[in-house]
Protein backbone atom coordinates (compact mmCIF):
# COMPACT_ATOMS: atom_id res chain seq x y z
CA UNK A 1 0.00 0.00 0.00
CA UNK A 2 1.27 3.49 -0.72
CA UNK A 3 2.08 5.54 2.32
CA UNK A 4 -0.55 8.01 3.44
CA UNK A 5 0.14 11.37 1.76
CA UNK A 6 1.88 13.50 4.38
CA UNK A 7 1.03 17.18 4.62
CA UNK A 8 4.59 18.29 3.91
CA UNK A 9 8.21 17.14 3.88
CA UNK A 10 10.43 17.82 6.89
CA UNK A 11 12.48 20.62 5.30
CA UNK A 12 9.40 22.85 4.93
CA UNK A 13 7.64 24.88 7.62
CA UNK A 14 4.17 24.34 6.21
CA UNK A 15 2.41 22.51 3.37
CA UNK A 16 1.70 25.93 1.87
CA UNK A 17 5.42 26.77 1.77
CA UNK A 18 6.16 23.41 0.14
CA UNK A 19 3.51 24.03 -2.50
CA UNK A 20 4.84 27.53 -3.25
CA UNK A 21 8.40 26.22 -3.48
CA UNK A 22 7.36 23.55 -5.99
CA UNK A 23 5.39 25.94 -8.21
CA UNK A 24 8.17 28.54 -8.11
CA UNK A 25 10.69 25.85 -9.08
CA UNK A 26 8.50 24.82 -12.01
CA UNK A 27 8.23 28.44 -13.13
CA UNK A 28 12.03 28.78 -12.99
CA UNK A 29 12.29 25.70 -15.26
CA UNK A 30 9.60 27.03 -17.61
CA UNK A 31 11.52 30.31 -17.97
CA UNK A 32 14.59 28.36 -19.14
CA UNK A 33 12.20 26.72 -21.61
CA UNK A 34 11.03 30.16 -22.79
CA UNK A 35 14.68 31.02 -23.47
CA UNK A 36 15.17 27.69 -25.31
CA UNK A 37 12.18 28.13 -27.63
CA UNK A 38 12.93 31.87 -27.75
CA UNK A 39 16.23 31.12 -29.49
CA UNK A 40 14.39 29.13 -32.18
CA UNK A 41 11.84 31.93 -32.65
CA UNK A 42 14.62 34.54 -32.79
CA UNK A 43 16.43 32.53 -35.49
CA UNK A 44 13.21 32.16 -37.46
CA UNK A 45 12.45 35.90 -37.27
CA UNK A 46 15.94 36.84 -38.49
CA UNK A 47 15.72 34.50 -41.49
CA UNK A 48 12.12 35.38 -42.35
CA UNK A 49 13.29 39.01 -42.50
CA UNK A 50 16.11 37.96 -44.89
CA UNK A 51 14.15 35.50 -47.08
CA UNK A 52 10.51 36.65 -46.75
CA UNK A 53 9.51 35.31 -50.20
CA UNK A 54 11.00 31.83 -49.80
CA UNK A 55 9.51 31.50 -46.32
CA UNK A 56 6.12 32.60 -47.69
CA UNK A 57 6.28 29.79 -50.29
CA UNK A 58 7.16 27.31 -47.54
CA UNK A 59 4.42 28.54 -45.19
CA UNK A 60 1.76 28.18 -47.89
CA UNK A 61 2.75 24.50 -48.27
CA UNK A 62 1.54 23.83 -44.70
CA UNK A 63 -1.99 22.50 -44.19
CA UNK A 64 -3.98 25.40 -42.67
CA UNK A 65 -7.00 23.20 -41.81
CA UNK A 66 -4.98 20.59 -39.92
CA UNK A 67 -2.99 23.34 -38.17
CA UNK A 68 -6.17 25.14 -37.05
CA UNK A 69 -7.83 21.92 -35.86
CA UNK A 70 -4.69 21.02 -33.92
CA UNK A 71 -4.68 24.46 -32.27
CA UNK A 72 -8.27 23.90 -31.10
CA UNK A 73 -7.39 20.37 -29.89
CA UNK A 74 -4.47 21.67 -27.84
CA UNK A 75 -6.51 24.55 -26.36
CA UNK A 76 -9.16 21.97 -25.44
CA UNK A 77 -6.53 19.84 -23.73
CA UNK A 78 -5.49 22.89 -21.68
CA UNK A 79 -9.12 23.31 -20.57
CA UNK A 80 -9.36 19.65 -19.48
CA UNK A 81 -5.97 19.97 -17.72
CA UNK A 82 -7.21 23.04 -15.82
CA UNK A 83 -10.33 21.04 -14.89
CA UNK A 84 -8.12 18.14 -13.73
CA UNK A 85 -6.19 20.47 -11.40
CA UNK A 86 -9.49 21.88 -10.13
CA UNK A 87 -10.79 18.35 -9.43
CA UNK A 88 -7.58 17.60 -7.53
CA UNK A 89 -7.97 20.80 -5.48
CA UNK A 90 -11.46 19.66 -4.50
CA UNK A 91 -10.28 16.10 -3.76
CA UNK A 92 -12.52 14.48 -6.40
CA UNK A 93 -10.49 11.46 -7.43
CA UNK A 94 -12.76 10.05 -10.15
CA UNK A 95 -13.17 13.39 -11.89
CA UNK A 96 -9.41 13.96 -11.64
CA UNK A 97 -8.81 10.62 -13.39
CA UNK A 98 -11.46 11.42 -16.01
CA UNK A 99 -10.02 14.85 -16.87
CA UNK A 100 -6.44 13.52 -16.93
CA UNK A 101 -7.63 10.83 -19.37
CA UNK A 102 -9.33 13.49 -21.55
CA UNK A 103 -6.16 15.58 -21.55
CA UNK A 104 -4.01 12.59 -22.48
CA UNK A 105 -6.45 11.61 -25.25
CA UNK A 106 -6.43 15.14 -26.72
CA UNK A 107 -2.63 15.13 -26.52
CA UNK A 108 -2.56 11.94 -28.60
CA UNK A 109 -5.05 13.44 -31.09
CA UNK A 110 -2.67 16.38 -31.50
CA UNK A 111 0.34 14.09 -32.03
CA UNK A 112 -1.71 11.94 -34.43
CA UNK A 113 -2.66 14.93 -36.59
CA UNK A 114 0.96 16.15 -36.43
CA UNK A 115 2.21 12.76 -37.67
CA UNK A 116 -0.29 12.91 -40.58
CA UNK A 117 1.13 16.33 -41.49
CA UNK A 118 4.72 15.03 -41.24
CA UNK A 119 3.80 12.06 -43.42
CA UNK A 120 2.37 14.41 -46.10
CA UNK A 121 5.58 16.45 -46.03
CA UNK A 122 7.67 13.30 -46.58
CA UNK A 123 5.50 12.27 -49.56
CA UNK A 124 5.66 15.79 -51.01
CA UNK A 125 9.51 15.85 -50.79
CA UNK A 126 9.35 18.81 -48.40
CA UNK A 127 11.75 17.34 -45.83
CA UNK A 128 15.14 19.13 -45.98
CA UNK A 129 17.85 16.93 -47.46
CA UNK A 130 18.91 15.41 -50.79
CA UNK A 131 15.31 14.59 -51.82
CA UNK A 132 13.94 18.05 -51.10
CA UNK A 133 12.02 19.41 -54.06
CA UNK A 134 9.75 22.41 -54.52
CA UNK A 135 8.67 24.18 -57.72
CA UNK A 136 10.20 27.51 -56.87
CA UNK A 137 13.35 29.42 -57.84
CA UNK A 138 13.84 29.98 -54.09
CA UNK A 139 14.37 26.27 -53.29
CA UNK A 140 17.19 26.89 -50.81
CA UNK A 141 15.15 29.45 -48.86
CA UNK A 142 12.07 27.20 -48.82
CA UNK A 143 14.28 24.39 -47.55
CA UNK A 144 15.49 26.66 -44.73
CA UNK A 145 11.84 27.34 -43.81
CA UNK A 146 11.19 23.61 -43.56
CA UNK A 147 14.32 23.14 -41.43
CA UNK A 148 12.80 25.61 -38.96
CA UNK A 149 9.38 23.96 -39.32
CA UNK A 150 10.66 20.49 -38.41
CA UNK A 151 13.02 21.73 -35.67
CA UNK A 152 10.35 23.86 -33.96
CA UNK A 153 7.32 21.55 -34.32
CA UNK A 154 9.55 18.53 -33.61
CA UNK A 155 10.82 20.07 -30.36
CA UNK A 156 7.24 20.98 -29.48
CA UNK A 157 6.04 17.43 -30.22
CA UNK A 158 8.87 16.04 -28.05
CA UNK A 159 7.57 18.20 -25.19
CA UNK A 160 4.08 16.79 -25.84
CA UNK A 161 5.43 13.23 -25.57
CA UNK A 162 7.10 14.10 -22.25
CA UNK A 163 3.79 15.67 -21.14
CA UNK A 164 1.92 12.48 -22.09
CA UNK A 165 4.36 10.50 -19.92
CA UNK A 166 3.77 12.88 -17.00
CA UNK A 167 -0.01 12.58 -17.43
CA UNK A 168 0.24 8.78 -17.38
CA UNK A 169 2.31 9.00 -14.18
CA UNK A 170 -0.33 11.30 -12.63
CA UNK A 171 -3.11 8.88 -13.59
CA UNK A 172 -1.32 6.01 -11.86
CA UNK A 173 -0.86 8.21 -8.77
CA UNK A 174 -4.48 9.36 -8.85
CA UNK A 175 -5.75 5.77 -9.20
CA UNK A 176 -3.69 4.82 -6.12
CA UNK A 177 -5.17 7.71 -4.15
CA UNK A 178 -1.89 9.60 -3.90
CA UNK A 179 -3.51 13.02 -4.24
CA UNK A 180 -5.98 14.83 -2.01
CA UNK A 181 -7.23 18.36 -1.49
CA UNK A 182 -4.32 18.64 0.99
CA UNK A 183 -1.65 17.43 -1.44
CA UNK A 184 -1.98 17.82 -5.21
CA UNK A 185 1.29 19.60 -6.05
CA UNK A 186 2.36 17.14 -8.82
CA UNK A 187 -0.98 17.72 -10.59
CA UNK A 188 -0.62 21.51 -10.39
CA UNK A 189 3.03 21.47 -11.50
CA UNK A 190 2.36 19.11 -14.43
CA UNK A 191 -0.54 21.40 -15.32
CA UNK A 192 1.86 24.36 -15.52
CA UNK A 193 4.10 22.35 -17.88
CA UNK A 194 1.17 21.29 -20.08
CA UNK A 195 -0.14 24.86 -20.37
CA UNK A 196 3.37 26.08 -21.22
CA UNK A 197 3.56 23.61 -24.12
CA UNK A 198 0.17 24.96 -25.23
CA UNK A 199 1.55 28.53 -25.15
CA UNK A 200 4.51 27.51 -27.33
CA UNK A 201 2.03 26.22 -29.91
CA UNK A 202 -0.05 29.44 -29.61
CA UNK A 203 3.04 31.25 -30.97
CA UNK A 204 4.21 28.50 -33.36
CA UNK A 205 0.87 28.34 -35.18
CA UNK A 206 0.76 31.96 -36.52
CA UNK A 207 4.56 32.02 -36.98
CA UNK A 208 4.65 28.96 -39.24
CA UNK A 209 1.15 28.54 -40.69
CA UNK A 210 -0.21 32.09 -41.03
CA UNK A 211 2.86 34.16 -41.88
CA UNK A 212 2.05 34.56 -45.59
CA UNK A 213 -1.58 33.51 -46.22
CA UNK A 214 -2.69 36.98 -47.34
CA UNK A 215 -0.16 37.27 -50.17
Amino acid at each position, binding site marked *: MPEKPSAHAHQFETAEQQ*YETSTLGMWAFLITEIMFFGGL*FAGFIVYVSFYAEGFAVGSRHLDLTLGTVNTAVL*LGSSLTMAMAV*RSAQLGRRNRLLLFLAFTLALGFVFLGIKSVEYSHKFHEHLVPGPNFHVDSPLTQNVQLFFSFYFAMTGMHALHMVVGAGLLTWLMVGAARGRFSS*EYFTPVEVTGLYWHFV*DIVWIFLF*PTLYLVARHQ
Partner: protein
Amino acid sequence: MTHHVVPIRIYLLVFAALILLTAATVIGSLYDLGGGRLHYANAVVAITIAMTKATLVVLYFMHVRYSNRLIWVFVGAGALWMAILLVLLMADFLTRSWLPIATWGG
Protein backbone atom coordinates in the same frame (compact mmCIF):
# COMPACT_ATOMS: atom_id res chain seq x y z
CA MET B 1 -4.07 24.62 2.67
CA THR B 2 -6.04 27.45 1.19
CA HIS B 3 -6.01 27.57 -2.59
CA HIS B 4 -8.09 29.62 -4.91
CA VAL B 5 -10.48 27.27 -6.70
CA VAL B 6 -11.34 28.95 -9.99
CA PRO B 7 -15.05 28.67 -10.93
CA ILE B 8 -15.76 26.40 -13.92
CA ARG B 9 -17.53 29.33 -15.60
CA ILE B 10 -14.23 31.29 -15.72
CA TYR B 11 -12.39 28.35 -17.32
CA LEU B 12 -15.13 27.95 -19.94
CA LEU B 13 -15.10 31.69 -20.70
CA VAL B 14 -11.30 31.66 -21.11
CA PHE B 15 -11.54 28.61 -23.40
CA ALA B 16 -14.28 30.29 -25.48
CA ALA B 17 -12.11 33.43 -25.77
CA LEU B 18 -9.11 31.31 -26.87
CA ILE B 19 -11.16 29.59 -29.59
CA LEU B 20 -12.63 32.90 -30.81
CA LEU B 21 -9.16 34.48 -30.94
CA THR B 22 -7.88 31.45 -32.90
CA ALA B 23 -10.72 31.91 -35.41
CA ALA B 24 -9.95 35.65 -35.58
CA THR B 25 -6.24 35.10 -36.26
CA VAL B 26 -6.91 32.48 -38.99
CA ILE B 27 -9.55 34.61 -40.75
CA GLY B 28 -7.47 37.78 -40.33
CA SER B 29 -4.43 36.07 -41.87
CA LEU B 30 -6.33 35.51 -45.14
CA TYR B 31 -6.69 39.25 -45.82
CA ASP B 32 -4.10 41.95 -46.40
CA LEU B 33 -4.82 43.98 -43.26
CA GLY B 34 -2.39 46.73 -44.24
CA GLY B 35 -4.29 47.50 -47.45
CA GLY B 36 -1.15 46.90 -49.55
CA ARG B 37 0.72 49.76 -47.84
CA LEU B 38 1.42 48.73 -44.24
CA HIS B 39 3.91 45.90 -44.75
CA TYR B 40 3.83 44.53 -41.19
CA ALA B 41 0.10 44.91 -40.39
CA ASN B 42 -0.69 41.18 -40.60
CA ALA B 43 2.31 40.23 -38.46
CA VAL B 44 1.42 42.85 -35.81
CA VAL B 45 -2.20 41.59 -35.62
CA ALA B 46 -1.10 37.92 -35.43
CA ILE B 47 1.48 38.62 -32.69
CA THR B 48 -0.99 40.74 -30.70
CA ILE B 49 -3.60 37.96 -30.80
CA ALA B 50 -1.01 35.32 -29.84
CA MET B 51 0.17 37.43 -26.89
CA THR B 52 -3.42 37.96 -25.75
CA LYS B 53 -4.04 34.19 -25.88
CA ALA B 54 -0.81 33.45 -24.00
CA THR B 55 -1.73 36.04 -21.33
CA LEU B 56 -5.14 34.42 -20.81
CA VAL B 57 -3.54 30.98 -20.40
CA VAL B 58 -0.89 32.31 -17.98
CA LEU B 59 -3.33 34.31 -15.83
CA TYR B 60 -6.19 31.79 -15.56
CA PHE B 61 -5.14 28.25 -16.57
CA MET B 62 -1.73 28.68 -14.89
CA HIS B 63 -3.30 30.50 -11.91
CA VAL B 64 -0.80 33.39 -11.97
CA ARG B 65 -3.61 35.85 -11.31
CA TYR B 66 -4.18 34.10 -7.96
CA SER B 67 -0.49 33.44 -7.18
CA ASN B 68 1.92 35.28 -4.89
CA ARG B 69 4.08 38.23 -5.95
CA LEU B 70 7.23 36.14 -6.33
CA ILE B 71 5.56 34.13 -9.13
CA TRP B 72 4.63 37.42 -10.81
CA VAL B 73 8.29 38.55 -10.65
CA PHE B 74 9.48 35.26 -12.23
CA VAL B 75 6.88 35.36 -15.01
CA GLY B 76 7.61 39.04 -15.65
CA ALA B 77 11.35 38.32 -15.79
CA GLY B 78 10.76 35.59 -18.40
CA ALA B 79 8.69 37.94 -20.56
CA LEU B 80 11.20 40.80 -20.14
CA TRP B 81 14.21 38.69 -21.15
CA MET B 82 12.33 37.29 -24.14
CA ALA B 83 11.52 40.88 -25.17
CA ILE B 84 15.20 41.88 -24.80
CA LEU B 85 16.24 38.92 -26.98
CA LEU B 86 13.85 39.78 -29.81
CA VAL B 87 13.86 43.62 -29.68
CA LEU B 88 17.63 44.09 -29.50
CA LEU B 89 18.19 41.38 -32.13
CA MET B 90 15.83 42.99 -34.63
CA ALA B 91 17.00 46.52 -33.74
CA ASP B 92 20.28 45.28 -35.22
CA PHE B 93 19.11 43.29 -38.26
CA LEU B 94 16.27 45.57 -39.40
CA THR B 95 18.41 48.73 -39.34
CA ARG B 96 21.51 47.37 -41.14
CA SER B 97 20.22 48.41 -44.55
CA TRP B 98 19.89 52.01 -43.33
CA LEU B 99 23.64 52.50 -43.67
CA PRO B 100 25.34 52.27 -47.09
CA ILE B 101 27.84 49.58 -46.13
CA ALA B 102 27.70 46.72 -48.64
CA THR B 103 28.96 43.97 -46.33
CA TRP B 104 26.23 44.76 -43.76
CA GLY B 105 23.40 43.90 -46.13
CA GLY B 106 20.84 41.46 -44.81
